């Protein structure tokens, strides 16, 4: 796969998969306002994925549009990080996942504003405004739950601890990340990782939570090697367009 195409798919699939995961909360939120908030965030992410997948289709040059990219690729073709495909769990698990990702996503789009690729830069310019709201929402919840009751404190700490092993993959550059940076369209993940650790630790401290120690970090998603959860999720997401490939609204 051409480098810029694969790089674009990484950004696109993070947005699409997390957007789909959050969509599972529709009608199940702990309160009406949260139900609406999670699905609003889902909608923003799917919107970002639409622009990115359209661009990926153009880069690929085989005439595939956003829908073909979303619904007719298999799990091993997806390039999202493992964090975003993890199951929703309870509300705290979802918020913890969102918090860890939002802080990454904001810094990523901020750095992408300096990309030499016009389309990626335009998408970043649009998306960062949305992620600013997402990041504030998830950070406020981390503080509310962490500095809340004894039960909410211990549950959210556990969620953060559980998901911590999935954070390294986001900010640890591999060969493709290095090439994208060298070619001027990608993001410097080494610099990003320092900001990410600082910002995340800042909110966790404010929430009276412990910053987990870095241990073994899970990875694979960026290369198409996924956890067992992704396949089940894609089966649900893709089954209508695959059963009726030419279906129209």
């Amino acid at each position, binding site marked *: 796969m051409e480098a810029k195409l694969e790089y674009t798919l990484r950004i696109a699939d993070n947005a699409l998969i997390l957007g789909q995961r959050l969509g599972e909360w529709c009608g199940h939120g702990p309160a009406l*306002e*949260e139900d*609406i*908030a999670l699905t*609003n*965030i889902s*909608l*923003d*992410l*799917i*919107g*970002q994925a*639409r*622009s990115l997948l359209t661009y990926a289709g153009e880069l690929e040059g085989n005439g595939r549009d956003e829908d073909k990219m979303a619904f007719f690729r298999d799990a091993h073709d997806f390039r999202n990080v493992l964090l975003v495909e993890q199951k929703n769990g309870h509300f705290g698990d979802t918020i913890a996942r969102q918090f860890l990702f939002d802080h990454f996503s904001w810094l990523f789009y*901020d750095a992408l504003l300096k990309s030499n690729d*016009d389309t990626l*830069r*335009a*998408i970043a*310019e*649009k*998306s*960062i*405004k*949305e992620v*600013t*709201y997402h*990041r*504030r*929402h998830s*950070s*406020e919840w981390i503080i509310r739950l962490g500095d809340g009751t004894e039960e909410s404190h211990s549950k959210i700490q556990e969620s953060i601890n559980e998901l911590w092993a999935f954070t390294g993959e986001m900010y640890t550059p591999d060969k493709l990340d290095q090439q994208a940076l060298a070619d001027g369209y990608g993001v410097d993940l080494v610099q990003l990782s320092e900001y990410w650790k600082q*910002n995340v630790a800042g*909110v966790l401290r404010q929430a009276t939570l412990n910053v987990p120690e870095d241990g073994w970090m899970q990875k694979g998603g960026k290369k198409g090697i996924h956890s067992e959860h992704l396949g089940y999720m894609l089966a649900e997401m893709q089954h209508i367009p695959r059963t009726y490939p030419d279906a129209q609204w």
Partner: protein
Amino acid sequence: MERNEAHILELLTAVKDPEIPVLNVVDMGVIRKVDLNDDHIVVTITPTYSGCPAMDVISMNVKATLKRAFGEDAEVVSQLSPAWTTDWITDEAREKLREYGIAPPEGKSHDKSQLFAEPKVIACPKCGSENTTLVSEFGSTSCKAHYKCSDCLEPFDYFKCI
């Protein structure tokens, strides 16, 4: 009918935001550009939010309006940069929003680097009281937050400043 930019923009004021029918797409700043080619008109639009479901309807209605007026198929292209901002909403449109019951965006689009911004004082569009509280930053559509007025007790939408 005259086929020039000013006239086309005037025609497009008939195209409303399907979710906020008091606003038209010109007042909102969604229409970025009108190009007149010999054989067809190209209208450039920009989405308010990446996932805004109103964009497809807006695009369809722009085409239909121009088809009715000139009998030709216009092209609608979407452009992401510069990213849409509430700063582009005209003063007249802000007043229309308030009358409709939606508090218009307050001030200029905020500094994107802020994590925990000071909550803004949003006046109730019904009674004008500034004694209001934010219920949720995510409301009935992507572009709105949910507030309530502590004086007249009405819940209301606030058009987020982005």
